């Protein structure tokens, strides 16, 4: 088996403030192979975006990251200094943001913004940079890249902006792309288009993609593997098919049950998981999901079930389904 494009080992994120330390992400480990898409799913506020930002080293001041290693193509980027890290960001590992409208600088044309990324990391003559920029726009499906290159972000629709963001993220052909809710702000058909383009690029450049989303439908459409996150911990890591056919963690099963079923003859009840995500200051001991879990017993409230991440499938539960 080839070495993974992205390998994360024991990543923890702490928020340090005067009132104490809060753990936002609790030593998670995973790896993504080249040309593979992995979904990271969970409810809002469970640490998905924190994980994504921590991998890039872009967390705000006051947030501390501890990790054994974050390897991109076998190179540990967690120990790099600021200058070395900046050389890696955008070239080897790129990010696609949730709001394509606000993630682009409003005062520059898209062509300018995309080519400045390439110029910064690769360089070359102006004609070469422009050609690369146009190729990149064409590769995400724009038939007339010159027009898009000359446009300002506000002149494009949300879907076109997001495609341009993808063009910007892929212009240096990075090994890893982290997409943080890339389709949440878009409508259904645009979402399908974006996911399709992402899938094509992934196959074409053998890019590893970490797709962060709270939408299981998006994950199902585009990922082969999926990780379920809750309160900063990975609860289940499996391939997409088995999750949808047989979720083993009660939380995963709860998430699946939240997807409304249209046209099924079951009663039209959308079941919500009872209770709320606990605040990071007030996490229950043992399994964080235990208070909301229908299957929890004494053991769940006292000790933390481990996730065997070395295998391709794992579940952190004492009483899996």
């Amino acid at each position, binding site marked *: 088996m080839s070495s993974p494009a992205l390998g994360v080992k024991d990543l923890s994120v702490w928020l340090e403030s005067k009132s104490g330390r809060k753990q936002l992400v609790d030593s998670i480990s995973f790896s993504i192979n080249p040309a593979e898409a992995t979904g990271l799913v969970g409810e809002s506020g469970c640490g998905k975006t924190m994980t994504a930002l921590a991998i890039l080293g872009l967390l705000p001041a006051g947030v501390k990251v501890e990790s054994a290693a974050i390897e991109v193509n076998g190179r540990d980027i967690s120990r790099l200094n600021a200058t070395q890290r900046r050389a890696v960001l955008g*070239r080897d590992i790129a990010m696609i943001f949730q709001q394509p409208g606000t993630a*682009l600088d409003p005062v520059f044309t898209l*062509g300018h913004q995309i080519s400045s990324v390439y110029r910064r990391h690769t360089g070359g003559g102006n004609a070469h940079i422009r050609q690369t920029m146009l190729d990149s726009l064409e590769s995400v499906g724009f038939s007339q890249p010159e027009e898009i290159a000359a446009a*300002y972000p506000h002149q494009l629709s949300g879907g076109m902006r997001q495609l341009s963001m993808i063009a910007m993220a892929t212009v240096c052909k990075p090994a890893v792309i982290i997409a943080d809710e890339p389709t949440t702000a878009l409508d259904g058909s645009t979402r399908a288009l974006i996911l399709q383009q992402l899938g094509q690029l992934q196959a074409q450049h053998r890019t590893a993609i970490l797709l962060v989303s709270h939408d299981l439908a998006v994950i199902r459409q585009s990922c082969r593997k999926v990780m379920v996150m809750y309160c900063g911990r990975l609860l289940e890591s499996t391939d997409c098919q088995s999750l949808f056919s047989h979720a083993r963690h009660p939380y995963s099963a709860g998430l699946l049950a939240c997807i409304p079923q249209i046209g099924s003859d079951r009663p039209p009840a959308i079941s919500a998981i009872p209770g709320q995500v606990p605040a990071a200051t007030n996490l229950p001991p043992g399994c964080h999901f235990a208070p909301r879990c229908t299957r929890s017993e004494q053991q769940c409230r006292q000790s933390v079930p481990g996730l065997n991440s070395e295998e391709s499938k794992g579940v952190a539960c004492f009483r899996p389904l």
Partner: protein
Amino acid sequence: MTQVPMRQETSQAWQRLKSDRYGMSGLVVVAIFSLIALCVWSGLLGQGWSDVSGNRWEGVSSTHWFGTNLLGQDILQRTLFGTATAFEVGLIVTLASTILGTVMGALAGWYSHSWLDEAILWLKGVLDSIPFYLFAAAVAFALRGSPWAMHLAMIITFWTTTARIIRGEVMRIKQREFIEASRAIGLPGLTIIFRHVLPNTFHILLVQASIVFVAAINTEVILSFLGLGIQDGVSWGLMLAESSQEVLAGHFGNFIAAGTSLFILLMGFNLLADALQDALDTRRATG
């Protein structure tokens, strides 16, 4: 290569400005006064401002279009020369205080709530709390009547407003996702400030600079009127100071010439600044 779309956008802004009648009349006024200032600087106009070319208080005639003053100097020549003085003060003060205010404001906003921000805010608070004309007098005294004392006093006090506006704007902009995105493509902090934060404040800076320009010309007139301003040369303020005695004697030449010039130039500049603000705002214009 990125010049092509930029030029397009500039020409769009120009189209929008052209369709604004008030803005265009402001532009014409500012252009005429700028031309006069250029001619004075290159020695084509207003060179006889200190020559005694007539009798005391001559009326309007073909030789003295605006009449003469107490000493028999030609008021038209002095008005033209005063235009150059106003532009010189306006340009120097605007350029220096805008650069200073932008840098200070950007640093304070980017590193907000750090010791640097605290220090800049403290300095701004101190400067803002000193009465301006007292401060101008103190600077003039400290510099032993240097002709640059007035410029310096204005630069030192005018940057604070620009800095305050830019600080707030930078604090707002740095929360936006494209700043995080520019970190995610590996740009260092200072590059982000100059390449992505400050360009987004450009339309505000332009308007603020035009306000400072108008304020500088105004203040120059007041300081010169008080005797704290222009020493070598003549300015509209000095002419107004002269006129304060002449008006009592019933001679309005200096007063009308300097007052009207000041009014027309400032009015034109304000109209132009207003129109520029609308024309340059790409988001509002295209909707």
